[in-house]
């Protein structure tokens, strides 16, 4: 098990290296660069000389391979360079916003799993009754309704009911837990809806599959309480595929955050992502892409290892 984990961790390196190479060279095919956007963006009249000077300062005049080498050396020492727009280190730019986004992501996961598992279970147990149909409508809605629109609807509802909107400035959890939770619960709900829908569908379909297994029939035949059959025999096995989906969707929550943070005016990773794209801030964008990829790879590993905990039959070599 330990050897397997070590092997998997080593195997992350080529994947992340591939991401690094791909994103670096993809971004360098761009015609205009950050300097153009920064200095000429608002139509200002800036001489070619100033532009060249700024390029030299940012190291954009070096040959492509030299730039790549610099970046690679930085990556190994976990130094992602400086933002080409604000001149602050990328690590710092990301660091100050990570807490907020991570908290929203974790809250969304908790909300989604708490609702999805019972929803999926009841839908499977009462298959083809009104409960199942209701669950299906709710989950299909989650897949079709864009998270940013759902966020807007949440805000509209809050306005209509309480004439209140969540505050814009972020209060960290350790400073004032109540203000923090009251602020972040709404964006967490907005990104969590889709998440919940995906997980609930998975729970329902894998439960239905498990119900056909021999060991369920055996358990019922030997007179185990129906509740125990469902919780101990069926749900425990049905949750395995659900764990994969929970992990994968958690790693992908950044996608939902990109738009939801915009709606709730939160200054998180998602907003940073959009800014770096519209400003052609390559170093920052590269750093963010690496973060998303690393997150995905780590979560994937965690899911694989969790499998062994939930299913003792699985042995890793």
């Amino acid at each position: 098990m330990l050897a397997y984990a070590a092997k998997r961790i080593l195997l992350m390196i080529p994947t992340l290296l591939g991401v690094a190479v791909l994103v670096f060279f993809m971004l360098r095919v761009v015609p205009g660069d950050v300097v153009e956007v920064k200095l000429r963006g608002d139509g200002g009249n800036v001489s070619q000389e100033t532009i060249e000077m700024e390029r030299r300062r940012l190291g954009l005049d070096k040959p492509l391979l030299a730039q790549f080498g610099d970046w690679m050396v930085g990556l190994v020492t976990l130094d992602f360079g400086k933002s080409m727009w604000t001149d602050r280190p990328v690590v710092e730019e990301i660091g100050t916003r990570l807490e907020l986004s991570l908290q929203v992501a974790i809250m969304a996961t908790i909300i989604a799993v708490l609702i999805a598992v019972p929803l999926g279970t009841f839908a499977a147990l009462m298959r083809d009754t009104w409960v199942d149909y209701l669950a299906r409508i709710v989950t299909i809605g989650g897949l079709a309704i864009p998270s940013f629109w759902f966020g807007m609807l949440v805000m509209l509802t809050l306005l209509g009911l309480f004439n209140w909107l969540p505050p814009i400035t972020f209060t960290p959890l350790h400073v004032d837990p109540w203000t923090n939770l009251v602020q972040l619960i709404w964006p967490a709900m907005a990104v969590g809806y889709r998440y919940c829908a995906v997980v609930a569908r998975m729970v329902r379909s894998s439960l239905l599959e498990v119900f056909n297994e021999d060991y369920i029939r055996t358990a019922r035949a030997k007179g185990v309480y129906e509740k125990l059959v469902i919780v101990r025999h069926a749900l425990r096995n049905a949750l395995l595929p659900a764990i994969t989906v929970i992990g994968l969707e958690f790693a992908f929550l950044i996608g939902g955050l990109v738009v939801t943070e915009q709606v709730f005016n939160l200054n998180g990773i998602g907003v940073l992502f959009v800014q770096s794209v519209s400003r052609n801030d390559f170093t920052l964008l590269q750093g963010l892409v690496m973060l998303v990829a690393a997150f995905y790879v780590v979560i994937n590993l965690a899911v694989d290892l969790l499998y062994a905990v939930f299913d003792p039959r699985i042995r890793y070599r």
Partner: protein
Amino acid sequence: MAVAEAAPAPAPAPASPGPAEAIAARSRTAALRRFCRQQPLGAVSLVVILAMMVAGLLSEVVAPYDPLAIDFAGILSPPSWQHWAGTDAFGRDVFSRLIHGSRTALVIGFASSFLGSTIGAVLGAASAYFGGRIDDLIQRLVDILLAFPLIVLALVVVAVLGKGLVLGIDVNLICAIAIPIVPRVARVVRAAALSVRVMPYIDAARAAGYSHVRIVFRHMAPNLVAPYLIMLTAHIAQAILLEASLSFLGLGVAEPTPAWGLMLSGNASDFFREAPWLILFPGLAISLAVFAFNLFGDSLRDWLDPRFKL
């Protein structure tokens, strides 16, 4: 693209054109009728999709007003008999903009899903057919691209390509939405192609000395049409959602083109209190469209291949 377009090869051509064509037409309507009977939800979604297509194709006829006509006398008027969905901050008729927006959504949704699914299908089929090093290389690339959520990858491509208008359509935006679709289709089609590859008729074709290209397109492709079509329709929904999200972020379709996501961005959110209809209707349109294509994709999957799971 000329090569890629050949992927969904048509069914074998009928021997004689006259009566065979009539039979083909009759069996096509019969197939449609069977689809509607077996998949009632699919039929409902098909109706929604057709209505959207009519709205998109005949926008000028269907829409009561010019979507770009500014009327400062009628700014932010609530829904009424004159303006079914109210007017926006420039006095433009929201309902007409929704109708015209369906054209934007459909064009970009279809085009990017078609482009992404086709490239993905060709890559997946080639990966399975050639195996070995080529398979390894393509699979590594697919694995790397799959590490990113659709919108993150699309945003990176937007950063790379910028805007590129051809005939009023942002071709670069279509590419940005198509590229994240490619690895997802490639993986599914490869799995299907692996089972086709071991069929005796592929061996026979190789023994007959046909070229690789001919075997992939003439012998394998027709047997991969079902997964290809399923992926294509399923990803139209994704593409419409993605286009709306990008436009909402101000990185997709640009003003003054009517697009659903764009209608929700910028000033719409400033009018929360005064004009909730500016938020309600475009969001409903996006949800309905995505819902219909999702449902249609699901029904198509159940109908074409019940064993096939996404």
